[in-house]
């Protein structure tokens, strides 16, 4: 599903002295079946931006198109369910949204709200729990007896169970251990390859380099750069003003280039860096 932001501006608390601008004239296209990373400092407007995609927030001015649906400031709050079924959203610390007595019921909650039959929802719960790396025995447990990481997986399963076409992830791996991170991020990459559109909010530039095909940088509510990660990480003016940091591989490559190495294209993943170093050591 293609998502297009056209001059979207959002202010919080309009017409009150506490009004503040969350998004400032953002125009961006997120391609169908892409893996887009949105990066920016805390408070830059990343979460505000993605909440527009399933109409949890509506633009103060401008419009956005999600698939065949247009969202403007006048969009009615009714009939948003079809949109929310298409756009799944994993919030920051999604384990805070668990509430049912069993894991199974909690995963079924979304699909049932979107009008699935009970059997179908149960089936989905079975599939999803495996997909997120837990076995079926967890389905009968209470979500509150699980560890934080397991709760996170259950919450993610609950969002994926409605089979959304677009999945928005707001720092899905914050606070997870390195193995958990890798597994969860791998899962999302797989989902993308199965034809879903993934939008990832993150502070982790390595994740951007390793998984994203496209990236957008937000600063104080404004979109300041977008494009392929390779291109964006090469924009030295962003790095100079500390609006963006580099993945570790790129950081390392920069240090190497001061010691006489030369990179035509800044390597942003470990693989790229390894290949480059190998070539240069063999050739030199």
């Amino acid at each position, binding site marked *: 599903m293609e998502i297009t932001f056209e001059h979207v501006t959002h202010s919080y608390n309009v017409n009150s002295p506490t009004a503040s601008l969350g998004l400032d004239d953002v125009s961006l296209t997120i391609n169908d079946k892409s893996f887009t990373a949105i990066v920016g400092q805390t408070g830059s407007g990343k979460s505000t931006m993605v909440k527009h995609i399933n109409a*949890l927030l509506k633009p103060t001015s401008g419009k956005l198109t999600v698939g065949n649906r247009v969202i403007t400031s006048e969009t009615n709050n009714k009939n948003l369910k079809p949109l929310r079924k298409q756009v799944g959203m994993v919030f920051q610390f999604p384990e805070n949204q668990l509430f049912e007595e069993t894991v199974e019921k909690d995963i079924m909650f979304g699909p049932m709200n979107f009008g699935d039959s009970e059997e179908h929802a149960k089936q989905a719960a079975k599939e999803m729990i495996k997909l997120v790396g837990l076995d079926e025995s967890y389905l009968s447990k209470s979500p509150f007896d699980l560890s934080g990481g397991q709760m996170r997986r259950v919450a993610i399963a609950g969002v994926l169970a409605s089979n959304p076409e677009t999945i928005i992830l707001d720092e899905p791996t914050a606070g997870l251990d390195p193995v958990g991170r890798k597994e969860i991020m791998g899962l999302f990459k797989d989902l993308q390859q199965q034809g879903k559109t993934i939008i990832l909010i993150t502070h982790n530039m390595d994740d951007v380099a390793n998984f994203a095909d496209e990236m957008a940088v937000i600063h104080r509510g404004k979109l300041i750069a977008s494009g392929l990660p390779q291109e964006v990480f090469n924009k030295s003016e962003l790095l100079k003003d500390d609006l963006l940091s580099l993945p570790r591989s790129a950081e390392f490559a920069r240090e190497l280039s001061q010691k006489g190495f030369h990179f035509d294209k800044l390597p942003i993943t470990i693989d790229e860096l390894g290949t480059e170093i190998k070539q240069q050591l063999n050739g030199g």
Partner: protein
Amino acid sequence: MDKIILGRYLPGDSLIYRLDPRGKFLLTFYFVGIVFLANNVASYAFLLAFVLFAVYLSKINFGFFLKGLRPIFWLILFTVILQLFFTPSDNPIWQWGILTFSKEGMVIAGYIFIRFVLIIFISTLLTLTTTPIEISDSIESILKPLKKIKFPVTQVALMLSIALRFVPLLVDETTKIMDAQRARGVDFGEGGLIKRIKSFVPILIPLFVSSFSIAYDLAIAMESRGYRDGEGRSKYRVLNWAKRDNIMVVFMICLTIILLFLRSY
């Protein structure tokens, strides 16, 4: 949530802001008491002038105070209408059964209306210009004499300040959980009454769970920083009673005297 003005703090700076919160707190209650001394046009007009002057001194946009009236607009309307039609009178303008419409009724309804406005404006003024933490500090200091009867004043004050500290946090948490459940297809405020009540379960349970876990973590953090039972702790936030607060008290006494005079006038 954004619509309720009463109970909100609005950052700003003016004479009213700088007054000692204890004084503001007590005088606000005192004012609500003496509003009932007013019994004729002159005294009500005088009180109204005083409140408008206080509002002017606060340098807060007047529109805010009007907004503060909105949530209880129906209560005011209800009371005023009740007074309009159920005030007994010897020479009614219009009468039908027990419904009486008279000049006296109109006057009393007018008084009630002004009384509402006065009380709401003055309490809105208190909360708009005083931070919650200042209010809890002043409650602590006002309750201090109760220590003599073994009332746990310091603990209550701590409870209050923790509660106030967590109000914005829990509001944030509630919004987040509501958003998350909305994204999973919950419609708040749709369908029949039972359905609507049921739709709050997915908010309340996570909210309780996170409140308890926050409380547990906070208790451990406090203990590890040397907190025992609140006794023998020093105070970091000190309230200062200044000259302007004395002036305020004198002002209020004058107000009472003038009011008593106008009342018998």
